[in-house]
């Protein structure tokens, strides 16, 4: 597979690993957060940690839209799906997420709710066309990458005059989440977490470009390297971060130049700006309320906004008390630090958000890495 296999080459990986080993300062520890679940997944799936020196620590960030969607919103979707004559369309990722009572979209489907798993927002449009007597609601989730396809669907529904189609919008924004983490007391005042640099998102950046990260490099003096999701991209980004730190630099660098332009995809951005506007605040599971961190559908497109069309109570449902997801999503704790990790909370029976998606920090560690003895110290012990 062109542009994939070359970026998974084991021989090159060992060479980059040798460069990393040669260039790290053995007197220092390096703590890098990979914001995205995609990077977390690559790190786990390819066993990248095995190729890194012991003093390079990877901290998993909150960049998994499935993990950070608050349970109240999942509950809303389930209630919606139970409405007679209504078809709820959802990406496969959301189907298994359990609510506080153990309900999920998959269970609601088993009980008779008409829930369709789709692979594209265009599928939801097609379902709406084929079922004119049903209300069809698209349960839209995701960061900047997945938002433009939702915008296209809404525009298309308008063009087709589809009166039975609407979107339950849960799109969230990457830069505001990174800001939130950097401004958290754990990082700013308490110094509980050391974050020396960020691996910036791959596919989000293809849409938003590399410029939005410049603020972090400048304001917080943290280097950011935007990296592709293939394992060599991740290795290379780690090397670039180490070089920046060793040279006392804090800049935005782009390793993923083959797909990320400084200004991103303007056409996609304009479509999103036309259909969506900022929410003043939005709840993130694990992070709490984060200002200006999510999108809602503009009033010009209110006809296609499921939150306008159906009664949707604002549900704030707290996570299980024993669950450490909040701390894990902020990078303060590792999955292994959580008392219920791997005991009560497993991929079969997820309690917290980090265990529910294969990209969540806990699920990735459980599924791919739990054989690994705890050779890497937790971030707070620096």
């Amino acid at each position, binding site marked *: *597979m062109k542009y*994939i296999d070359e970026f*998974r*080459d*084991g021989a090159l*990986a*060992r060479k980059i*690993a040798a460069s990393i080993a040669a260039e790290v300062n053995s007197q220092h520890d390096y703590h890098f957060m990979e914001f995205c*679940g*995609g990077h977390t997944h690559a790190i*786990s*799936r*390819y*066993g*990248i*940690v*095995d*190729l890194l020196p012991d003093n390079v620590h990877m901290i998993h960030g909150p960049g*998994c*839209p*499935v993990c950070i969607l608050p349970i109240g919103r999942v509950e809303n979707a389930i209630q919606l799906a139970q409405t007679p004559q209504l078809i709820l369309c959802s*990406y*496969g*990722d959301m*189907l*298994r997420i359990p609510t506080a009572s153990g309900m999920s979209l998959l269970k609601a489907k088993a009980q008779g709710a008409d829930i*369709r*798993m*789709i*692979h594209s927002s265009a*599928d939801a449009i097609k379902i709406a066309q084929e079922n004119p007597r049903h209300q069809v609601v698209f349960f839209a989730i*995701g960061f900047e990458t*997945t938002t433009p396809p939702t915008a296209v669907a809404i525009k298309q529904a308008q063009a087709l005059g589809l009166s039975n189609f609407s979107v339950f919008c849960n799109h969230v924004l990457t830069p505001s989440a990174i800001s939130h983490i950097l401004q958290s007391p754990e990082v700013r005042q308490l110094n509980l977490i050391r974050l020396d640099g960020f691996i910036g998102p791959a596919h989000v950046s293809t849409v938003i470009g590399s410029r939005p990260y410049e603020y972090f490099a400048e304001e917080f003096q943290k280097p950011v390297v935007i990296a592709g999701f293939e*394992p060599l991209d991740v290795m290379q980004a780690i090397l670039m971060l180490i070089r920046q730190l060793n040279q006392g630099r804090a800049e935005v660098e782009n390793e993923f130049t083959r797909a990320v332009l400084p200004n991103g995809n303007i056409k996609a951005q304009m479509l999103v700006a036309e259909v969506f506007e900022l929410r003043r605040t939005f709840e993130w599971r694990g992070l709490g309320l984060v200002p200006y961190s999510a999108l809602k559908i503009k009033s010009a497109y209110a006809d296609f906004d499921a939150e306008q069309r159906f009664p949707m109570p604002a549900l704030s449902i707290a996570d299980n008390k024993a669950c450490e997801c909040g701390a894990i999503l902020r990078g303060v704790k590792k999955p292994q630090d959580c008392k219920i990790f791997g005991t009560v909370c*497993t*991929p*079969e029976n997820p309690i917290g958000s980090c265990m529910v*998606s*294969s*990209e969540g920090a806990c699920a990735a560690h*459980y*599924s*791919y*890495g*739990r*054989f*690994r003895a705890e050779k890497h110290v937790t971030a707070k012990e620096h």
Partner: protein
Amino acid sequence: MSGTGKIKPGYARSLDLKHGCIEMAHGSGGRAMAQLINQLFLAAFDNEFLRPMNDQASFPVFNGRMVMSTDSHVITPLFFPGGDIGSLSVHGTINDVAMSGAKPCYLAASFILEEGFPLSDLKRIADSMAQAARAARVPIVTGDTKVVEKGSGDGVFITTTGIGMVPDGINISSENARPGDKILVSGTLGDHGICIMSLRENLSFHTSIKSDTAALHDLVADMVAAVPSIHVMRDPTRGGIATALNEIALQSSVGMMLHENQLPIHEQVNAACEFLGFDPLYIANEGKLVAICAAEDAENLLKTMRTHPLGEKAAIIGEVIEDSHCFVQMQTRFGGKRIVDWLSGEQLPRIC
């Protein structure tokens, strides 16, 4: 009376195999059912054991250990490149029997038919089963049909049961894997699952990959003849090779280390998995086996497998290790290590 002389006993108009459908009467035990069985199933499966049409089949047995296995087959779509539910139901049970090292001898087949199911499709399925059974030299010796109301089934469900004879001195069982043993597979992984997924309307991708459905007992016979001391055999169907190996690891109380660069996987299977967010190790196979044997026998076994058409792409993919956690691990092509875990729930296509 004048007309009765023309009435033949037991006469019924021929089944309309072109346009006819399954009706409730085909399951009610009356003439319609007898006709369906005679004209469709018996005609296709015909053999000396089935022909007497008793409620049971009578056949000779031999001295030694016998094995028995049963498997229900439900699949959408019923017909797919490489096979159909009929051939699949024959191969599936033959393979389950053969994984003990046994020679499969006889099959039984039970059909649940949905009212309205086209007879032409049923005939196609029965013919395909008959062909698969004949090619495998394993007769279908008894059977049953039931009909359920429209909406209560999915066209046709087929349960097959098989019995086989284990050659003397063969002891193949999932609890026999020992640290140091080698792990082999007979060919490319995930072909069946990817073929089926490509046909599901909502996934909408196109591939030239065919289902690998095949009867493996001849391959097994060659393997057992070459290396009678094979420790474990399993056909990695649902849940793929990852599930099969995790089951064996647990049953044998061992761990495993796989080598990603040794895994035979068709590039289209890899590509489809990239699109869908799947892992090929969890995708179903219907004509592949995994075998575990002592390290010193591995090369010999591999050579034997590769000389059989169904084992051309066989490979040694890893080894059994000591591990109290019974983890199946994999040395990645990239140079790291990871767990190949049990599947949690059904593998759903991901977008993230």
